[in-house]
């Protein structure tokens, strides 16, 4: 199983699409590692700079609704994976992106808007999130305090994460 948790990157905008996560011109690579320098290269949010050291040190992304919409490119989870970000927490996800995350043994955690708002209250205060995978709980800590919240995963998605991904799961079962 992958390691989950660490410093948080807050992306305060809905509908962040996979073209913004990794532009199509980089889909010509044949290894995941080659994607690494191009994470979130075309994302436009005020104050966001993709090569900022704080961005590169992040391990968890917290964002809004419909995260990962658009293209089916698994290069989107991959560019996070090679940058050591294995968790995205959002109000909702586009279906293909969400499935790609679990298929890679990564976590796409959906939480209600109120819970996401609580997480965003820690923005700008050096926030970190710890994930307790077994109990479906996460704890956010920052200069503004600490709070533990519960989340829910589908049993299948949890099984994929435990197995290390869909290829491993499917190969053992079908």
């Amino acid at each position, binding site marked *: 199983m992958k390691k989950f948790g660490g410093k948080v990157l807050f992306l305060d905008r809905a*509908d962040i*699409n996979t*073209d*913004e996560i990794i*532009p*199509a*011109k980089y*889909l*010509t*690579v*044949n*290894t*995941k590692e080659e994607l690494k320098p191009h994470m979130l290269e*075309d994302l*436009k949010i005020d104050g966001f700079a993709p090569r900022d050291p704080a961005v590169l040190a992040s391990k968890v992304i917290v964002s809004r*609704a*419909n995260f990962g*919409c*658009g*293209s*089916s*490119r*698994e290069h989107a*989870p991959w560019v996070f994976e090679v940058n050591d970000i294995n968790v995205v927490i959002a109000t*909702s*996800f*586009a*279906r*293909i992106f969400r*499935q*790609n995350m679990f*298929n*890679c043994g990564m976590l796409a955690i959906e939480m209600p808007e109120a819970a996401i708002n609580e997480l965003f209250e820690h923005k700008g205060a050096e926030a970190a999130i710890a994930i307790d995978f077994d109990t479906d709980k996460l704890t956010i800590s920052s200069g503004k305090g600490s709070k533990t919240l519960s989340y829910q995963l*589908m*049993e*299948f998605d949890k*099984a994929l994460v435990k197995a290390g*991904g*869909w*290829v491993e799961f*499917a*190969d053992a*079962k*079908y």
Partner: protein
Amino acid sequence: MAMTLAEKIFKTHLKDEPFPGTKVLNIDVVLCHEITTPIAINDLVARGKDRVFDTNRIKVVIDHVSPAKDSQTALQGKILRDWVRRHKIKDFFDIGQNGVCHSIFPEKGFIRPGNTVIMGDSHTCTHGAFGAFAAGVGTTDLEVGILKGVCSFRDPETIRVNLNGRLPEGVYSKDLILKVIKTLTVKGATDCVIEFHGDVVKGLSMESRMTLCNMAVEAGGTSGVCMPDEVTLDYLWPFISGDYKDKKAALEEFKKWWSDEGCKYAKVVDIDVSDMEPQVTFGYKPDQVKNVTEMAGTLVDQIYIGSCTNGRMEDLKIAASYVKGKKIAPLVRAIVSPATTEIFRQAEANGIIKIFLDAGFCVTNPTCGACLGMSNGVLAEGEVCASTTNRNFNGRMGKGGMVHLMSPAVAAVTAIEGKIADPRKFRKEAI
């Protein structure tokens, strides 16, 4: 129990239900292209599992960057070609015989009502136009599809969209789907299948239905779906005539897939199209849609007619009917890319290519190229493109470029005017 078309397909294709709410389906057709498949192939090789579940159910095309533009894209093509040869996959379409995936695979008759179809491409939902459950997937799903012929999905809900009324002059299926996306929003159909119903849909050709289903994903939908009927049958008949006693028998078979009366819909949306205007996007999201009259006059640098959304014969004919005998405006450039080699050949034979050339269009070979900013028409920073494609995301056709999505009719008259224009104000010529 009354079931939707998607529920019927899930029931007949069920391989396993590993956990509540998750279904693993047997897949009838696995489609592949050179952008998302090579990494799956490399991974299978690295795992010592370089096998395919069924060589006859895997269809392969080189389309995204064709011909290759550099060493990297050439390598992607090579990995795919080597794999096709290694596994003796017969349905492979290389440059010279290729086409944009969601245009060429239906053209070859590969997709049938009731099929399950996956591809590492989000616009796979196009094939739902044939009454299939067709979903875009990532490379890992594709890899397992290639190896095992299965794919997992959550139980789908269905949104029913009724398009009623009379389609006004100058309004086409692209306008309809832009209107639907505006109504549902970019996330309104997430985890749902969108069924298209109503008199308007019944009267649409298969090409128009494909345009409709193609952009279901822009509302978050897993698949767009039309009920397979006489129009579907006429399109598929050359490929299936040997399988049925007669057309009547085939149609009876098709109708078994229709959603039952009384089936459960997550939502029903009714749209009367009678007073609709042509639709054009603004901004960076496909649900940011306005009437053409609000967008008219917007200056553009490039016009692009093509892609899996609007590069079919019907689209080229519509565009050519507005372009015939005219010239594109000075200071704009216009590109038309027939979606398949066969469409190119037909357009050449019936004089449509000449109409575009005479008007000053650049005619390219079939490729996805410009639609996703890969090749054959990438925008420079600050440039604006009037495009018949499917995504207006920031940077989609080139970093810093702006894309306005529209029908081939609006694109054609925009090319003539050099700014976004209303096709209803132009005379159509017979083609």
